[in-house]
């Protein structure tokens, strides 16, 4: 077995843990670091539930070895809220616009949407739909997820946000 100490920065914190070369990043995050926000959905690079941000890229952590992320800056859903517990605009938006039902896809959706809005702060509806096309949701039909991302974009851009539908 080729084990080594793998170190990276996750949600602003420097972390180190022993891992085999073949350990996938999703397993490193969930089992070594106990960060169970990123989910294992399909484990075949399709569903996007395991999406995290690595050095400014949205990536499926089931399709990356932890050793490949050595030295990287990683962001998971656990790193989205402020230190004071204040929800990120996207988290608030998903709550306010009912952007989730079972919630399984939500951590990946939010982390992906975060990168999308950093790259394109004013996406059109079509751009949002293409932007989240690597994340599957089997509950919502995506409609309220799109609304949530629009809500968050408006909030981040300082536009007054309408109260969510009752």
């Amino acid at each position, binding site marked *: *077995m*080729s084990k*080594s100490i793998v170190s990276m920065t996750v949600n602003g914190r420097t972390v180190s843990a022993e891992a*085999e*070369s*073949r350990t*996938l990043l999703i397993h490193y995050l969930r089992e070594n670091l106990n960060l169970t926000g990123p989910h294992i959905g399909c*484990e*075949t*690079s*399709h569903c*996007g539930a395991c*999406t995290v941000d690595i050095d400014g*890229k*949205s*990536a*499926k952590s*089931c*399709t*990356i*070895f932890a*050793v*490949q992320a*050595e030295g990287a800056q990683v962001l998971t859903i656990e790193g989205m809220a402020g230190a004071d517990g204040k929800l990120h605009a996207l988290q608030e938006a998903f709550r306010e616009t009912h952007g989730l039902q079972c919630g399984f896809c939500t951590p990946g959706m939010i982390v*992906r949407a975060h990168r*999308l809005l950093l790259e394109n702060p004013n996406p059109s509806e079509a751009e949002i739909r*293409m*932007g*989240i*096309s*690597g994340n599957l949701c089997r509950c919502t039909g995506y409609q309220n997820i799109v609304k949530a991302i629009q809500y968050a974009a408006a909030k981040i851009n300082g536009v007054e946000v309408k109260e969510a539908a009752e």
Partner: protein
Amino acid sequence: MIPGVFDYHRPASLSDAIGLLSRLDSDARVIAGGHSLIPMMKLRLASPSHLVDLAAIAELKGARVEAGEVVIGAMVTQHEAIGSELLAAHAPILRETAAVISDPQVRYMGTIGGNVANGDPGNDMPAVMMALGASYVLRGQGGERRVAARDYYQGAYTTAALPGEILTAIRFPAPPAGHGYAYEKLKRKVGDYATAAAAAILTVSGGRIATCSIGLTNVAETALFADAAARAVVGGALDKASLARASAAAEAIADPAADGRGSAEYRKKMAGVMTARALSRAFARATA
């Protein structure tokens, strides 16, 4: 879905990577974005004893124009290709093609070099590189050589690259300003491989097609250079008759397997339909 055991290497230079490959077991593999190789390792269809990661090698990154030739480093990702103004200015077909490869997360990781190197007939860039007349730069212990994209693919996952060689860059003559281009991909959903796809590059002079080249994706064991389909439209304007000739020529060389995307007959037919659509759109762009 746990891959087999392997040793991981992340060399900082190309010469280190080539040195490693020559010293390690013959089943050592290079890994670029890993989005073809890691899924295969998880399925144990691939069990390399060593992985040589190209991610830290600066000389494999970036794209540039050198004496009229576009040079793309093997580690340029699909996401970077979409965002590259240089590539959009010189070979906009690359942006159009990269945008229909898989999904955003995969495009952040997946590289152009990996897409052309591994010989998967479902990959989209090989047909485009055939249409562009690209060459692949291969470097190994014995030095560097170039292989034309049109000669590189020998069968599914079988290529002209020798053991120990690394595909370091892709080079092609920049198509002339005002050229027409299109990549037409029929797929069932985001993330799917093509049912059939066609890449067309052409130039128009005085209303007639002066030059044309066509590549086909996922309708045979390898990407196909559809020479006869291109010749069928050169010399005239694009009309119903020449489009029909080009479609028929594309169908004639397509030899797809039946799969979840459709029967062999259907996919063969779609090779012709995608060819006609790509030619029509490329022609419209060149004459706009």
